[in-house]
């Protein structure tokens, strides 16, 4: 889980071109959207593709986004759950 979360942070920074944010600056439980890291709906769509590219998980309904992408930990848990299936 720790390794997965560290990977995710690096992938998020790269995919979203978060200049001046270091992966390690993102807290495991920090909200990614709005008052947290400040991501928005376009970023959510980018993250959906990130999951597809790196983890081969396809999300068909963008409305699932807010729950899955709440934090790095929620993303990691979602990925782990899917990979076990």
């Amino acid at each position: 889980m720790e390794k997965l979360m560290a990977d995710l942070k690096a992938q998020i920074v790269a995919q979203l071109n978060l200049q001046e944010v270091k992966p390690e600056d993102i807290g495991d439980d920090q909200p990614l959207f709005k008052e947290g890291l400040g991501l928005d709906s376009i970023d959510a769509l980018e993250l959906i593709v990130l999951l597809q590219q790196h983890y081969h998980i396809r999300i068909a309904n963008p409305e699932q986004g807010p729950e899955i992408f709440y934090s790095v930990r929620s993303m990691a848990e979602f990925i782990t759950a899917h990979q076990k299936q």
Partner: protein
Amino acid sequence: MSGNVWIAGGGVICGIGTDLQACLEAFAQMQPGMQDMQYLRSIHRGVLPVAEVKADNAALAARAGMPEHISRTALLSKIAAEEAWASSGLGARAQYRVGFVSANTVGGMDKTEEFFASYLQHPPSGGRLQQVVHHECGSVTELVADAMGIRHHVTTISTACSSGANALMYGARLIRNNIADVVIAGGTDALTRFTLNGFNTLMILDQAACRPFDDTRTGLNLGEGAGYVVLVSDAIAATLPQAPWCRLSGYANANDAYHQTASSPEGTGNYLAMKGALEMSGLQPEDIAYINLHGTGTQNNDDSEARAIQRLFAPHYPPMSSTKSFTGHTLGASGGIEAVFAALAVQQGIIYPNAHFTTPMKECPLVPATTFSSGNRIPHVMSNSFGFSGSCSCLVFSETV
């Protein structure tokens, strides 16, 4: 800087018909144009329905009198612009100061896509230049202007999905400022893989037929086509062989300034555009007898538009509908195509149907018209066009008396 701007005619080609009369028949017979892709080559064929113009480039080129190898966007444009001109009864173009103001969103992208595939394989020398020479939006406009012998005033507007409506506003200003006597104004866009895939990344394309203003809506269907009106000054209107269709009595362009792609929840830009157009026309909300909705069918767009309408019109709503439930969303063309439909609605008293509507939206239960009717008394029509980058435009058409 004064005087009226009249609609002397109009022409349309889109997924429900290759001329205006065919489109009217499709509305009357409740036949939307969405189908499996036939002409566009994409991996999304069979998955994402689109409203294509039912003709290949060879057939369109023959009708347009233009070479087959040029962009489909130019072919569609020429066909609709010629129909618009013919319907106006203005005769030879050489006797007027004619302007051509056309909108599109991706220029000759259909050909650029072909070019780029070869170019990327062997950069920088790959690909045939003939396929990329008309990439620019303005180039598509000039292909048509040149073919129609128009050079007094030629320009192109691109403001995403509101482009066509903004072309009418600029055209009207050219007439009011005595820079042109007659302006052919509207927009054109052919389906391209670029736009199809772009909208697909936004996850707002419905895999079924779109359902604007319906509670079960899950997205839009893309379409293609072109639509132009012929705008004329008072002096030219007086010389027309028949009465003009109607007057362009009001227009406004506002910006939502909220988000690049999403509309603000309360529809600020939508509201400001509708309110501004009404004010310019000197009308009250209750004077509007029909609203041609932007109505794409996405959750966010329809919600914002409905809230803005509620704010401006409550508690008395005129009949309204989204013709995109028939034509699909034709992007840069939509403002032009819907301007033609809206202007004709005034002239012939038409209320267009909204296809696939069953359940009012929970948040804002507006009920669009679901059947076609003509011969109604429709003195004033409002037509909405909203787009990316917060672009919001609204046109008001009024009867001639």
